[in-house]
């Protein structure tokens, strides 16, 4: 491999990595936001993404709605679904003193249910893509080549992240969510309704899943296995510290770049194992992640 090749690969890996990484970052944001406010590690995040893809697909194929309507309905359905799951299921599980194991199993149950539902419809048998709103023309940046679709994905993801940032920083709901994340009991005392905030966080997770699905599925095929993308989002969340929203974004972009570099420089076969190695290395060397702050010792 000549020096020129390496330079080209570095550019291409960095740019492609930022594109896929921005989608991982979105999903990681959803995981972290849910974990911060409800203490639930959402193992069903990938299935929520998959579900969003199939909701859009079935609206498009079976109901034959125009694409704009499909997008809007998918966003609404996924938000409502997330809120409903928190209200009906999670509320009950946390209420009966659900500890970590129970919470994890509940989200795993949701994951199985969603996978099963999608398989039952038979839509998953033939892999399909959603139509793209942007043309697939290529654009050269430096020596690297991206499609216009890639750029649209990255820009939309960044805009969504900025919106989330503004929501958390400036709106009452966002501040309430942060307060619940810091200390639920104190938040309750100052008049924040916990169950409503938690529903909103889950709704946000559903919304983000829908956005991520709509962004990524014109680029890759929708199959039930698309849920495995969430593993990369998990790696991103852990690298970023698991409780830090900016960390999730940085982690997502980092994982995206690393994944692409591994694919270009080592082998495509190694891509699958890269996120797990990232998780292991982070947890062993720096368990609190890049942005996790100090490890807190729990008092008796």
């Amino acid at each position: 491999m000549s020096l020129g090749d390496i330079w080209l690969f570095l550019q291409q890996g960095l740019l492609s990595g930022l594109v896929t990484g921005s989608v991982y970052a979105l999903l990681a944001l959803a995981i972290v936001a849910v974990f911060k406010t409800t203490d639930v590690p959402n193992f069903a995040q990938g299935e929520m993404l998959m579900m969003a893809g199939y909701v859009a697909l079935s609206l498009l194929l079976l109901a034959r709605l125009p694409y704009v309507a499909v997008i809007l309905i998918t966003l609404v359905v996924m938000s409502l679904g997330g809120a409903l799951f928190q209200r009906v299921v999670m509320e009950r599980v946390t209420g009966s003193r659900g500890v970590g194991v129970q919470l994890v199993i509940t989200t795993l149950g949701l994951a199985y249910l969603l996978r099963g539902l999608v398989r039952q419809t038979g839509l998953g048998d033939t892999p399909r893509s959603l139509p793209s709103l942007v043309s697939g023309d290529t654009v050269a940046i430096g020596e690297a080549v991206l499609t216009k679709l890639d750029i649209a994905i990255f820009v939309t993801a960044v805009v969504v992240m900025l919106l989330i940032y503004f929501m958390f920083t400036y709106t009452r709901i966002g501040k309430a969510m942060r307060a619940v994340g810091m200390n639920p009991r104190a938040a309750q005392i100052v008049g924040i309704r916990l169950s409503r905030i938690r529903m909103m966080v889950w709704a946000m997770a559903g919304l983000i899943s829908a956005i991520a699905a709509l962004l990524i599925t014109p680029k890759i095929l929708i199959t039930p296995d698309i849920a495995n993308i969430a593993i990369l989002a998990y790696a991103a969340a852990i690298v970023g510290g698991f409780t830090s929203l900016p960390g999730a974004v940085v982690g997502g972009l980092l994982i995206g770049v690393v994944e692409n570099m591994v694919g270009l420089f080592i082998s495509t076969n190694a891509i699958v194992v890269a996120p797990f190695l990232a998780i292991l290395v982070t947890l062993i060397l720096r368990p609190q992640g890049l942005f996790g702050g100090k490890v807190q010792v729990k008092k008796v």
Partner: protein
Amino acid sequence: MKRCSLDHLALAVLLAVLCVLPFTVTGYVLYVVNLLMVFAVLSLGMHIVIGEAGQFALSHTAFYGIGIYTAGILNAAWHPPFFVSILAGGVIAAILGYVIGFLALRMRDIYLALATFAFGEAMQWVFLNWESVTGGSNGMQMQPARLFGLRLTNDLQAYPFVVGIAALMLWITVWLSRSQYGSALRAVRESDVAAMAMGINARAMKQSAFVISAAFAGIAGGMYTLFVSFIHPDSLGFQTTILVLTMVVVGGLGSVRGAIAGALVLGVISEVLRQAQSAQEIIYGLILLGFMMFKPRGLFSGTGKRGAKPRASADAVATTGRSAAP
């Protein structure tokens, strides 16, 4: 009625059924029973690390796989008596468990769960890609296990040994849980700071529970090689860990009889659902959600109302562990 005598009764019934079975049923049913025994040992192992020591580890299938491959490869290479290859699988799983535990047990709760989850997935990748040893994605054909000239070629021949090993592992679990060591583990589960104040080396307790759990999984893997002649990495993924975790939790976290009951019930359910491929995941998901919503502490969740209060329920779990069968 006393819990203890009920346990003895249940155990006697189970024993009677197991004795009569080989004379009455077909090979398939025996295969399922053998599989249930393997699941029972797996879930006992997970019970030790999650139920007794309170460490949320999700790497069980990795050690199970290591047990299967170790025993399978030994059987093919040297044809040792099968208990040697099973033990070897247990020992190698335990050694790897020690290393992983050493690295991972500095973390708590969700971080430990994620680290062990990542290790499990990485191991599956190793099984899938280390082709010279595991056969990779072609799977591995395994030689029948031997015991001094006897070759175990079908489910019926393997049956008494599989049941025997499962009984032995159950006895070891109950013995551990009743010993001072078991009490120390539960003390660490409730609060490692308080346990350390009482002079218990919490770190060593967690570490040893993790190693024992890994050894159990390795031995379960060895048991598997007694009656199955083919292994593919696809069956050594996260879903197997989830299945075992569900057995332990649905049975009742922290109770030996829960681990056994969960293994039997969910083992049968997962085998029955295998026939109904399309609905499998939906039903399984609904079972998980339903249990967590309406019976989060499982089938054997201690007795009566004591389960309702957090502190008291911890005691209840502890006592359940102590009075557990037989």
